[in-house]
């Protein structure tokens, strides 16, 4: 059988590549996303004291280190068998809201706005946040200001913007100062205004992306996200809700400690990123999507007034289940608004200024699971320890991992649409990049920063001869 290999290589940091394999009639047989970085946290943390885990695992990702700090601290809370003080739980959620705002701002303004505003075929030398700053200074400044606001919420609470050590097993290590609360409250109206005008702008340009919305990344899949007891959006706590492609709830309120009954993991021969799957269905068909789109597809509502109005409009426009991965962008903006409103509610809770912020205990349980919604989706830290508190085993399931199979399917869909066997069409590269970017994959939780995903695709004959070559613009 004739075999043709197309190899797509990122030219940035080499952390992700894509290859597409054709059959002898020139049709796409399979596509693969290669994540090319592995650091081995699950192995090298063996023997470390459990209370070091938040600081160590935060170094998995500098984009949303707070997610790892929180999931890890929650796993440590479970090992200590403590219920943390009310104030500590409120403060952790407040920190998390700051992170959602900064991370979603980064994804939308720094990463995707260059495509959405300047166009996918614009000059690559200017197609970045500085190019946006030049051509659309108001929007770029909004993005920089919104990310800064989120980062300042984090540094206000936790001292540092990146890799703070404020979140600890049992709670947090310093109370909130009233002056910091007042400063955040003073900044909220402008931050909300930024998100609201961005949403208005984005909804206005949606029609320009009809082709992307309809044709790319809309393969049916399941969805998963954390919900509270009433089925509302939950970022810091809650259980997992799984919905099938038609929107039927197939599992609900799955507690952190039960995750393994519903989520299995498979190794792929061609990627350092493992592929989680919905266990009752099995591998590889148990595909589900997490992150902003997954969350807004599973929850009943957000639970804050402005975000709920946007949530209602989102589903009114696009249906009860929104399948197109392009709408990750839209969902992300709604969640940024939720993050700001939730922050406001937390800051008005009198308990937020409490001084009881940390439970102290030793090892009371030899196993613990911590689970939260990271900006990109469900994040799970699962540890086992010995009686001295040394880690004996660790498992981490990162947000982008859950989407691994779905991203692969989206790439496959685009490839099937564009490959004709002998020549590569220009449009394919931009669409592949755009699809990967819509998921906002954090490959640093294996790879990826705040840049584009430039691709270099080579179409090779059976003996490796170069048939065609394309580079992303």
């Amino acid at each position, binding site marked *: 059988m004739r075999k043709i290999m197309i190899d797509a290589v990122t030219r940035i940091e080499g952390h992700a590549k894509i290859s597409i394999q054709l059959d002898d009639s020139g049709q796409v047989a399979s596509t693969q996303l290669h994540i090319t970085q592995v650091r081995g946290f*699950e192995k090298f943390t063996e023997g470390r004291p459990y209370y070091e885990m938040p600081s160590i695992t935060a170094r998995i990702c500098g984009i949303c280190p707070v997610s790892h700090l929180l999931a890890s601290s929650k796993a440590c809370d479970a090992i200590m068998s403590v219920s943390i003080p009310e104030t500590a739980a409120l403060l952790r959620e407040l920190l998390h809201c700051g992170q959602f705002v900064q991370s979603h701002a980064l994804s939308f303004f720094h990463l995707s706005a260059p495509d959405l505003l300047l166009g996918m075929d614009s000059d690559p030398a200017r197609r970045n946040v500085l190019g946006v700053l030049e051509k659309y200074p108001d929007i770029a400044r909004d993005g920089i200001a919104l990310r800064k606001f989120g980062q300042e919420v984090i540094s206000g609470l936790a001292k540092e913007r990146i890799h703070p050590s404020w979140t600890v097993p049992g709670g947090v290590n310093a109370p909130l100062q009233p002056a910091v609360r007042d400063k955040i409250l003073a900044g909220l109206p402008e931050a909300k205004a930024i998100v609201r005008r961005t949403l208005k702008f984005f909804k206005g340009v949606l029609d320009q992306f009809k082709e992307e919305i309809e044709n790319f990344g809309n393969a049916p899949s399941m969805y998963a996200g954390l919900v509270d007891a009433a089925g509302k959006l939950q970022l810091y706590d809650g259980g997992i809700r799984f919905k099938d492609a038609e929107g039927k709830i197939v599992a609900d309120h799955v507690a952190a400690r039960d995750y393994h009954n519903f989520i299995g993991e498979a190794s792929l021969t061609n990627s350092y990123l493992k592929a989680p799957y919905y266990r009752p269905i099995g591998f590889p068909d148990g595909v589900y999507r997490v992150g902003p789109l997954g969350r807004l597809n599973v929850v009943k509502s957000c639970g804050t007034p402005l975000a709920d109005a946007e949530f209602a409009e989102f589903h009114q426009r696009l249906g009860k289940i929104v399948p197109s991965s392009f709408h990750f962008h839209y969902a992300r903006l709604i969640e940024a608004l939720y993050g700001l409103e939730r922050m406001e509610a937390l800051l008005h809770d009198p308990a937020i200024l409490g001084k009881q912020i940390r439970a102290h205990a030793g090892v009371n349980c030899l196993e613990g699971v911590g689970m939260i919604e990271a900006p990109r989706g469900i994040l799970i830290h699962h540890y086992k320890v010995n009686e001295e508190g040394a880690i004996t085993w660790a498992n981490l399931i990162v947000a982008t991992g859950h989407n691994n199979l779905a991203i692969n399917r989206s790439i496959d869909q685009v490839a099937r649409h564009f490959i004709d066997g002998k020549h590569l069409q220009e449009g394919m590269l931009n669409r592949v990049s755009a699809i990967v970017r819509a998921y906002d994959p954090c490959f640093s939780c294996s790879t990826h920063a705040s840049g584009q995903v430039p691709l270099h695709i080579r179409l090779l004959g059976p003996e490796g001869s170069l048939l065609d070559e394309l580079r992303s613009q």
Partner: protein
Amino acid sequence: MKKAKVATLWLDGCSGCHMSILDLDEGIASVADKADIVYGPLVDAQEFPEDVDVTLVEGAVSSQDDYEKIKHVRECTRLLVALGDCAVTGNVPAMRNSIPVKKLLERIYVQGVDERPRIPTDGVPPLLKRAVPLHEVVKVDLFVPGCPPPAAAIGYVLRELLDGRVPDLSAKVKFG
């Protein structure tokens, strides 16, 4: 006046150092007045240019890809800056160094899965035996420690280098 060319490179790190560059906030615009960012995850360039004035490198050298990349970047760069603790000392990526690579990969991809236990080999670069800091592989012109280095220190380094001075980092950075 001709603008200087600045590049950034991301090897085996968490991208926190790159996030710290973005933490210059609106200060990014003033860097852009003095220099073009010609390569890196913050911009959309395909090839590393041949005549870069300053390259900030985040991360340790951990895979065969990292090794080849840093060798090439060194040849094309006038001033190479090790940005952050991973680039300066190996830091967290080097925590795996006492474990044989095969054992590490087996733990994750064979014992650590429910389905298809197998070590990825297709289209992924082999890991080096040890994750090492930049200066074990190439000559480094300036070390900027920190996990990550604060945005103010990064801004200061860029301003000084672009004005042709050697930055004095004492009291501006620390490890961790």
